[in-house]
């Protein structure tokens, strides 16, 4: 039920692109397969790369992201851990310090709070503390953000938490191309990278062309992507909220408003240049995220505008669409209303545009 609804959304999202005949002919690949193939590529490419986490091996991954990898690479490279996040995250960081390239999977990022000391204090700070002697090439990955019907402890976005910390890189892919390219870049990166995936996107298929499936395909960390060009208003989003933004763009288009949709891809570094450039054209900006508002990604973007010449390009205040400032409720209707939806984004865009269109 959920999946079929999701694929409808994905189709709608894809319609929101200006699709060329070439992309229509492209191969479809789910985000899950994008991640799986990225892991496979990098495990094959570098013997030092290994995956550890709960249920990653024999169970084939709690969300099947690592499906087939244990059979292919064996016990040494694909390691099932007990349910002890702090311990195995620490072990992964120690292995990275000693020259390996661990990929530490959190079954969901909610559980990474058990291990956040190792992400921040052990992984992110060691290179600086050692005056550049010991870098820590590790990837922390897993599904982040709200899932469906799993209530408060299993539904929150950690983008702002991890992006707050210097020494970390944080990426938040939206589609298959992002997921595959960013994960591969993260694994090859010499610094600790947090890869925030989204469970609700795992099963969604996107068109991918040949260059995306190439073994050397990489998406650069720190660069945003313009998903849809527009001249009237800029909408910045990351992860699943990109879908919401694209749906809103389609709706706004019906009213003759051309929204430019920016998929952040990276939360840290934050590609402000792409956003500034866009706003120089559109003079209006809203941000969309499924995380909480206070000190969030949108809040940071607002602050960056306040401090930059680009502020003077704005014809209206920047506005944020965020998750409602409450823990996630279980009940379906409440949950649905806890996150920004297309009408929320569209309404925000219309408000910011102030009837100019």
């Amino acid at each position: 039920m959920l999946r079929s609804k999701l694929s409808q959304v994905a189709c709608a999202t894809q319609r929101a692109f200006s699709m060329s005949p070439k992309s229509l002919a492209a191969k479809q690949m789910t985000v899950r397969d994008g991640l799986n193939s990225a892991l496979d590529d990098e495990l094959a490419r570098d013997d030092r790369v290994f995956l550890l986490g709960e249920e990653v091996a024999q169970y084939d991954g709690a969300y099947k992201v690592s499906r087939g990898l244990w059979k292919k690479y064996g016990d040494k490279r694909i390691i099932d851990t007990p349910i002890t996040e702090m311990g195995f995250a620490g072990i992964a960081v120690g292995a990275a310090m000693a020259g390996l390239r661990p990929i530490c999977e959190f079954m969901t990022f909610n559980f990474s709070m058990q291990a956040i000391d190792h992400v921040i204090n052990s992984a992110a700070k060691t290179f600086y503390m050692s005056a550049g002697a010991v870098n820590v090439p590790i990837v922390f990955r897993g599904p982040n953000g709200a899932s469906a019907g799993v209530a408060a402890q299993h539904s929150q976005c950690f983008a702002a938490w991890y992006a707050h910390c210097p020494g970390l890189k944080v990426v938040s892919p939206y589609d298959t191309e992002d997921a595959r390219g960013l994960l591969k870049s993260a694994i090859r990166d010499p610094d600790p990278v947090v890869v925030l995936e989204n469970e609700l996107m795992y099963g969604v298929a996107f068109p991918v062309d040949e260059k995306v499936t190439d073994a050397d395909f990489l998406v650069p960390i720190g660069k945003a992507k313009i998903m849809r060009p527009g001249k009237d208003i800029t909408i910045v989003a990351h992860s699943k909220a990109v879908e919401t933004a694209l749906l809103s763009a389609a709706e706004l288009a019906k009213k003759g408003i051309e929204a430019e949709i920016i998929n952040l891809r990276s939360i840290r570094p934050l590609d402000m240049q792409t956003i500034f450039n866009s706003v120089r054209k559109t003079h209006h900006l809203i941000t969309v995220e499924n995380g909480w508002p206070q000190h969030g990604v949108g809040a940071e973007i607002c602050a960056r505008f306040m401090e930059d010449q680009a502020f003077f390009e704005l014809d209206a205040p920047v506005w944020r669409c965020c998750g409602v400032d409450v823990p996630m409720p279980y009940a379906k209707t409440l949950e649905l209303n806890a996150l920004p939806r297309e009408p929320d984004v569209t309404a925000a865009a219309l408000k910011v545009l102030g009837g100019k269109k």
Partner: protein
Amino acid sequence: MLRTLSRVSELPIIVKQLQKNAAQAGVAKTNNYATEATVQVNRPFKLHRLEEGPETTVKLTKDEALKYYTQMQTIRRIETAAGNLYKEKIIRGFCHLYSGQEACAVGMKAAMRDVDNIISAYRVHGWTYLMGVPPLGVLGELTGVQSGCARGKGGSMHMYCPNFFGGNGIVGAQVPLGTGVGLACKYKGNGGMCLALYGDGAANQGQVFEAYNMAYLWKLPVIFVCENNNYGMGTSSERASCNTDYYTRGDALPGIWVDGMDVLAVRSATEFAIKYVNEQGPLVMETNTYRYSGHSMSDPGTSYRTREEIQEVRQKRDPITSFKELCIELGLITTDEVKAIDLKVRKEVDEATAQAKGGAELGLSHLWTDVYSNNLEPKLRGTNAYDIDHIQERKGVNH
């Protein structure tokens, strides 16, 4: 060496406890001076899930005796210098001294091979020196100057060098990290292992047990070393731990209790443990020791224990004095040699102290140097604006 399921083997297997007595030890002599001696360890090992333990009769050569004495004395002098620098307010923040515990580090280092690694907590000045950083690298790091081993950016708790993974400020966090270093040894198949050190305070951290568990499941070459100095800050081990036999707390992991004031016992236990963990998997080693200073420099260390207790250990169990007396008694070292070493060590540490006091801190640009090994931030933010360009000076060892 077989693990037993009962705890019978925890009982001391060596009934005869020998006092330090050269008459009972075999001594090889040339020109009336001994070049090698056979010594019994001071107190018996206690074993958990082990049927055989470390050698209780060990060989000690003159060169080794000179080396261990020099190392222990150097650590003691470095710590004395650090304590003084702290009182002079030249060392800032945290400063945890190792005085009293020297035999633990020197004994373990004596058993380590080139492929072996060590990670510890925040009482690491001595270890940093033993792993190859000269006294100036340690003292300079404490005074925060460029000559420090982390160029003054790490401070007392964050020192590193090859095969030494720090210096960790978060109590217990180093234990899974060290387990990961052990995993890397096994993964690479280089025959190395990792000593993961923690105190009796950290021994109660949940992540320590998580690390035991995974190390056992995966048969990782890791020696979990609980340096039990009897106090986690100001809380005695009895007040913090439901079981103060730390060498038994690995459950399925075998354990060894060793007198941490006896450098030869620590060496023997570590030699045994290195062989064991490489062949069979992890092991817990408790070194029973004592710290003379407070937990850190801000702790006088007398509100939760008596001055008499400290004095008694200093007089009866001091690891340096007792080793010195043993070596003299065995004829391995002469009193003149002791004096010469003391003088040399004092001179070396005094010179390092002067340099550490007189050294310069890094230039301001180092504030924004080497935050990332591969920086992708267009600009770093200063206090008022995004007006800083990250400087890449080093890339780190892992590429």
